[in-house]
């Protein structure tokens, strides 16, 4: 019979579930967010309460077992929010705790391999955010960028932008998930803004943009066109390297 664990769908909740499982010596075959419909043929059902103390202890144990890269991997896979990624994480964590030596490179094991592959996929999305994000300068001097990454990876890219653009105020907003990060020259903080036309289109309208903004965008578009070698046009490669789903917010593709 299947073991079903319900939890609050937070990362701390997941770690608490790990703790609970070891206490009960029962491990989940299915992980579901609290409130989801239970499967028809559930075996035993557990409801995990998120407890800070427990999640902290599990994390501390993992810090002893895993390398910094693998710990970062846990974060990456968690942020992917791909269906089933929480159960994968659970199994990976369990493997790491049970094994006497590090399991990180046991790529013959399906859980370890799948974990490594998901890490790569999510880090690629982080990279794409760094590549394809475009700022527009607003009238008040803030640089604004709208993004819609496939996974919830904005938090993983924020440090990069804070390091690179530390002398200009900026706001990066995830339109799909309705939140963003604002940097005011001192620190970065998470913000949720009221719905406005700007947050639907992602483009600064007339009157919102800084003077000259239009012109810089024009210059960039001109450059983008001129740099292509006509004798070598290759639309397929173009789209493969810069997938169409990013075009909506790419200045040069407007």
């Amino acid at each position: 019979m299947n073991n079903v664990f319900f939890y609050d769908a937070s990362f701390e909740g997941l770690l608490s579930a790990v703790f609970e499982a070891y206490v009960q010596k029962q491990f989940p075959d299915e992980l579901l967010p609290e409130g989801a419909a239970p499967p028809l043929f559930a075996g035993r059902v557990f409801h995990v309460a998120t407890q800070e103390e427990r999640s902290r202890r599990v994390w501390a144990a993992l810090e002893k077992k895993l390398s910094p890269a693998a710990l970062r991997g846990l974060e990456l896979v968690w942020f992917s929010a791909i269906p089933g990624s929480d159960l994968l994480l659970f199994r990976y964590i369990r493997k790491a705790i049970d094994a006497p030596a590090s399991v990180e490179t046991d790529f013959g094991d399906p859980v370890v391999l799948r974990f490594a592959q998901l890490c790569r996929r999510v880090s690629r999305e982080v990279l794409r955010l760094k590549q394809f994000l475009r700022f527009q300068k607003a009238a008040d001097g803030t640089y604004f960028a709208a993004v819609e990454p496939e996974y919830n990876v904005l938090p993983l890219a924020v440090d990069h932008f804070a390091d690179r653009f530390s002398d200009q105020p900026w706001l990066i907003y995830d339109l799909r998930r309705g939140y963003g990060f604002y940097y005011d020259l001192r620190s970065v903080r998470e913000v949720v803004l009221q719905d406005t036309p700007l947050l639907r289109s992602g483009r600064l309208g007339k009157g919102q943009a800084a003077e000259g903004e239009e012109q810089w965008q024009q210059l960039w578009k001109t450059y983008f066109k001129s740099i292509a070698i006509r004798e070598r046009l290759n639309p397929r490669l173009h789209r493969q390297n810069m997938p169409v789903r990013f075009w909506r917010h790419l200045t040069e593709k407007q």
Partner: protein
Amino acid sequence: MKEGVLEKLKILAESAKYDVSCSSSGTVRSGRGKGVGNTVGGVGICHSFAEDGRCISLLKIMLTNHCIYDCAYCINRRSNDVRRATLSVGELVELTMEFYRRNYIEGLFLSSGVVRSPDYTMERLVRVAKDLREAHGFNGYIHLKSIPGASRELVRAAGFYADRLSVNVEIPNEASLRRLAPEKSLESVFQPMRFIRQGVLENQEDRRRLRHVPRFVPAGQSTQMIVGATAETDRDILSLSSALYARPTMRRVYYSGYVSVNTYDDRLPRLKQPPLVRENRLYQADWLLRFYRFRVDEIVDEAHPLLDLELDPKLSWALRHPEFFPLDVNRADYEELLRVPGIGVHSARLIVAARRFGRVDSCQLRRMGVVMKKAQHFLAFRELAVRTVDTLPPESARALFLPARRRKKGEGQLLLDFADE
């Protein structure tokens, strides 16, 4: 921004685009604290891709496309009747800063036609870099072209502002080069390369003694060769690449399939299309030199001076060496695994790591990303009922890997052979 910059940008980007290098790799410099910008480790970031599919990482532009030289393969040669323009130092700096702040680019790649004299030109390139670094606190990536014939002092000055310097070989043979570029010689290219190398080595010395000496071209140098404009074989080209890589500081050699820009000049072939497949094969061969530990004479030799256009160079090597196979994936060492077609650097590492936990079977290989369709013919697996290359006559082995005959026209531009070769 002043009037007319748009036009100049257009002209000078068009003039610069045949230089294929674009990478912004090789420097790690954190930005936090002062000025704007950083450079990230490893490979650098491509911010966009042009419609020819090539990465746009840096603002690649010429300071001016006026030139006193007359290199036959160059669109900017003095005898061409093209529109000319010059950007001022201030305009270039502003373009770079504004583009950078909008996350369009990683930095600047600045080259120039030669005006008045090599030193006069080089001095202006250096001024742009200096202004960006010192007056604008710019920490992004700067790649400067080192003008052949410029003095050692100016190359030195450039190296303290730039992450990378480059000098293009363009034509890998003295006689051909002189025929096409009467003002140049291989020595005029190797000399600035030497200046850069010496600069780096001395800088390393200085930095050992004094900790606060600034770094000299931390990302080293690169160069480019034009492919298909002259009679040189792939063996000539790759031998020079391999010799260049053997010297410290040479990080990348780029290959640029010749685009017939000056069709009136009968010293040059008239190609309908640049030799893209050949260019692609050269990049693959270059990759084998740098990451797969191949020697150049294993890839091309007297009997095979040209790369096979139908098969990639690793596969062609493997087919010429059936005695090397089949390999046992559970025993072969890392370097041997790298030689198996279908196994790349990434999967070879996974295999070596995974083996420590137990035997690896063919299903696991597939899941690790090994292209089994290729690899199966080079690996010994009892469970796979295929013939390995050592048991096949050479011709039928080759036939296994030839690409299926032309699919739809226009598809797979880089995958199929082209008409002109």
